[in-house]
């Protein structure tokens, strides 16, 4: 007990296990969108001023600042506006790599969604490719994002670049 100072060799780390329960609210707009997936429907919200359609639905158009107070259905198919081929595993996802992660402009929507493209060789993915949603079978859909398993090519001709390059 006659030390004149603490040990020279410090304790280098302390562990801190953060544990935080959260109780998230979907909000009515997202809840409505998710519930519709159960019926194989993709809903967007429509700007009361410009008529532009947002998927997932949002409460206002940031462009016009007007409310989007109407829900409209959009197609479950559209155009790959751009994409990347992912070669590294992502925490929390068990996907075979490489896979194609794309931005898809659904027919009838004015903004794109992020989507997983499957049933295609990664090197065959193209900007402008037409794709469609592959749904979970009837009876298995829960009203969540997983209800759309992925998108796959439709085989239709590619859309010309000038038709989508400005809505990536």
């Amino acid at each position, binding site marked *: 007990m006659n030390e004149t100072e603490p040990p020279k060799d410090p304790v280098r780390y302390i562990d801190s296990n953060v544990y*935080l329960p959260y109780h998230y609210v979907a909000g009515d707009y997202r809840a409505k969108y998710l519930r519709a997936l159960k019926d194989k429907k993709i809903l967007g919200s429509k700007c009361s001023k410009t008529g532009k359609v947002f998927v997932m639905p949002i409460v206002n158009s*940031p462009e016009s600042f007007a409310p989007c107070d109407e829900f409209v259905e959009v197609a479950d198919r559209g155009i790959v506006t751009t994409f990347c081929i992912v070669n590294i595993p992502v925490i929390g996802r068990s996907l075979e790599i490489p896979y194609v992660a794309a931005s898809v402009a659904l027919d009838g929507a004015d903004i794109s969604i992020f989507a997983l493209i499957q049933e295609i060789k990664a090197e065959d993915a193209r900007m402008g490719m037409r794709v469609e949603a592959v749904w979970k079978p009837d009876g298995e859909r829960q009203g969540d994002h997983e209800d759309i398993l992925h998108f796959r090519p439709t085989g239709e001709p590619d859309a010309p670049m000038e038709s989508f390059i400005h809505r990536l």
Partner: protein
Amino acid sequence: MSTLRNVAFVGFAQLPVVARDEHRMATEMLYPVVVDALRQVGASRDDIDYQVSASTDYMDGRPFGFVAALDVMGSWPARQDLHLEMDGSFAAYYAWVKIQTGEVDTAIVCTHGKTSEGEPERVFNLQLEPYYHAPIGIGPTASAALQASAYMARTGTTDADLAARAARNRAAGVGNSDNQVRDAASAQQLQGSPWAIEPLRSGYVPPIGETATCLVMAAEGKAEKLCDRPVWIQGVDHRAELQTLGSRDLTRSAGTALAAKKALAMANVGSARDVDLVELLSVTPVEELILLDALGLDAAASTPVVNPSGGPLCAHPIMSTGSIRLGEAFRQLSGRAGDRGVAGAKRAIAHGAQGHCLQQNIVWVLGTEKRWA
């Protein structure tokens, strides 16, 4: 102090504070508030030069929670912008600094936060220094209780005194439809409420609640056009203190005292006694007493009126509570406070704070008259 630009609060909107809005995400709650604030001042979004938002990722339960706020604040085309991980009162301060440069004349200051999604006692444990303090498990109610025990020991303040103080806030808050708690409670009832963390009872701490707010600020020349009775900033200052609970006097608020001294000097007001009302971000009756002391006010005096809104004991939406203090002062001084209006009020102090045990404080002196010629 050299001459500054006269800047006013010209609009304030909020949602009534509720325990939990089950229908809207945090940013969805903010959109109607921004719309309402702009409607109040009769401005289009493009009329506003600058925007500041205030929120915290850990209360949002996600990183970058504030990014989504850009969309509901009307950030198109691109706006001059800043986001502070601070209470709204400090965000308003930054907007005031920005307006002082002369680069912008008008600003909106938005807050959002869905307090019910997280658990503040756990979240703000993580605000403590991570090597010695956070591992002990102290949360904000616990630190406030430590503060209360030290204060009671130093001053002889009793449980009954705290109950009386809390009851005054509750009585004042009855008429405020934006409050989450709107029923009065007697001192006796509050003193009978169960311990939150002793010596604080559940009646002495705020309920968990949420809202969104938007303040509109404008410089002289614009302010008068946007509001019939602008509320002018006459002085403001803020100060942080070291955090370590055992290394500062928790029973006094040195930061508030210094900020008040500076803000009053800027306002050319001799004493806090010369204002008509004060709105304090005090989350316990003990903090209220500490703040009154720091402001040089006698807790027993009838003027200035303290927390005519009912104060944070009636509504404490984290990140927005400081903005509400400013909003309440704006309502009082611009004749918008309705039944809770303090008759003839011409000058107010709005206080804001964040951190454990009043670690960081801001003091605003607001008035019906411009400060600088």
